[in-house]
């Protein structure tokens, strides 16, 4: 059962980052769909079932925090991982399940995402 492919929605306004990050996640065995903005991501979520959202924190029109808040309104159990290159955690409250630094590197990114996915799947199967 854990062998099934998870679907990850990857959100970032920088196309190169988005592209290579998606490839890394695919290499780790996931299926990846992408969105280049928060509103784009919300639109996708309404039509496509997704197991996890990986979003950048700083984006021009809708920040990762706003996006997460919106996602949690419509899909309270959908795990969201926030991803950032800034020094410190945002001061305002955010509802993401995990906060990661971009410099942790692809390996740690994949490990942490796998952890979150398994935790949420376990929660889904053992309500």
């Amino acid at each position, binding site marked *: 059962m854990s062998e099934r492919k998870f679907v990850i929605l990857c959100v970032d306004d*920088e196309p*190169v*980052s988005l592209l*290579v*990050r998606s*490839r*890394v996640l695919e*290499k780790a065995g996931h299926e990846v769909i992408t969105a280049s903005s928060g509103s784009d991501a919300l639109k996708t979520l309404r039509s496509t079932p997704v197991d996890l959202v990986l979003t950048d924190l*700083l984006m021009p029109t809708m920040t990762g925090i706003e996006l997460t808040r919106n996602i949690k309104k419509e899909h309270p159990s959908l795990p969201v991982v926030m991803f*950032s*290159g*800034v*020094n*410190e*955690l945002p001061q305002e409250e955010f509802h993401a399940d995990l*906060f990661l*630094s*971009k*410099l942790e*590197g*692809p*390996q740690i990114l994949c490990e942490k995402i796998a952890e979150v996915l398994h935790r949420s799947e376990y929660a889904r199967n053992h309500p």
Partner: protein
Amino acid sequence: MMSMNPIGGRWKSPMEPAKSNGSEDTNDRVNILLVDDQPAKLLSYEAILGDLDANLIKASSGTEALEHLLKHDIAVVLADVSMPGIDGFQLADMIREHPRFQKTAILFISAIHLSDIDRIKGYQRGAVDYLSVPIVPEVLRAKVGVFAELHRSRRALEALNRNLEQRVTDRTEELRERADLLDLASEAIMVRDMNGVVLFWNSGAETLYGWTREDVIGQDLHTILSTRFPVPVSDIESSLLKTGRWEGNLVQFTRDGREVTVACRKALRNERAGAPGVILEISRDMTERLRAEDALRNAEKLAAMGRVAGIIAHEINNPLEAILNIFHLLRGHVALNEEAADYTRLAEQELLRVVHIVKHTLSFYRESQQPVAVSITEVLDNILELQSRTLHLQGISIERRFLTDATIQGFPGELRQVFMNLIVNATHAMPDGGRLRITVRRRVDPKTHLRGMAVSVCDTGTGIKREHIRQLFEPFFSTKSAKGTGLGLWVSKGIVQKYDGAIECRSISYRDGNATCFRVVFPRHISMRQIHSDAAYSAQES
């Protein structure tokens, strides 16, 4: 039989007006008291003594005479022996009883009997004389005049004495005040002669330099203080000779070898009235102020760099992540031949070094959102355990002096980073073994009275040169040449400052080696008890 009391009651009652009043008393004119029950005799004495420059006070009885004596300063009492009531001898008895009047001259007028002369001898203690009747006016005038003069001289002498005593008291007080003022001054006040020999040294100088008065009086001032002048000494001397003054900063050394910078004012007091010329020096300790200004400048510089670093971090991290990911994708890529795969591996290694630097300097992020109670001793124990193998292999002994288990509110990861840095640095400084001492103690800030803690990490390693200490906390400064990035302490300082804390370093070398001590001060801590109550509080909340 005769107490003073019966007359005492009458002092204040209105009396027959006295011939003198208070204001005349104070003048040079002396008072002569004439006592006789016969008004005619009083008048005749008055006539005879009128020429003397004196106030004549008349009393018609012994009682009245005593009253005048108590009121006025009487030089001579001229008393008739035979009077009704208190006679002349009784009056004399009573006068002598009073300490104030023991030296008052008494002149009896009497038809003298042999027995009278014997009685008069009984009064020899004071000035006593007698005149027999009939009175020869010249003799009376002469005798009274001598006594009056005697009294006047004595009074003048007493006044002079009192005046002298007062002046001595005043002057002593003035000198004492001046000395107190000199000692009150926190400045070091010194006087030296033209050859540099110390003549005066106040307590401010004792405090500043640690040398006592006894140590330095007679010694050469600038030899004792190892003074370093900002300009050639000859310039200072010529300025003193020309203008009488010089001002400037001097670097000097205290008794315990501490370097101090003082703002010094010198003034030349020329030779005068036989007194040799001297140089007055007043020095104020500027060390702390200069250090504080320096620290402020540095902090501002670091803060500015921190802001720049933050911006750079943000701009760098995004492409860096992309490149990291690209290398990850390239790893084991089928299209790469062996040579290309090697280059890729090398490039990825180099990239990881860049990432390491960026991560540990520009973009350390906090691992949890809310600060928690962190036990510093636990953090230290943890690091020491991790490092225990290295420490053991290098022959480094560890001394833990954990004098408090207080905690601080913060983020364990970054606090760990601070102490990890310090402990690893200490280890690097002792390649051939040594001692590592870690002390944690409570500390009350002397200014803010905040209760905090101080952690020191001391080693007996290679030591740090004085000129390097200032630069230690600057970015990219390292004494470990290729080994270090020069960022560890800079980052540590940044972290400690977020806690309103401070980090400082002292390194001293002595005969057998060096001791280097890094001290981290956190101004606030919370006690264990407070944590428990906080926990109880948040448990209630949730």
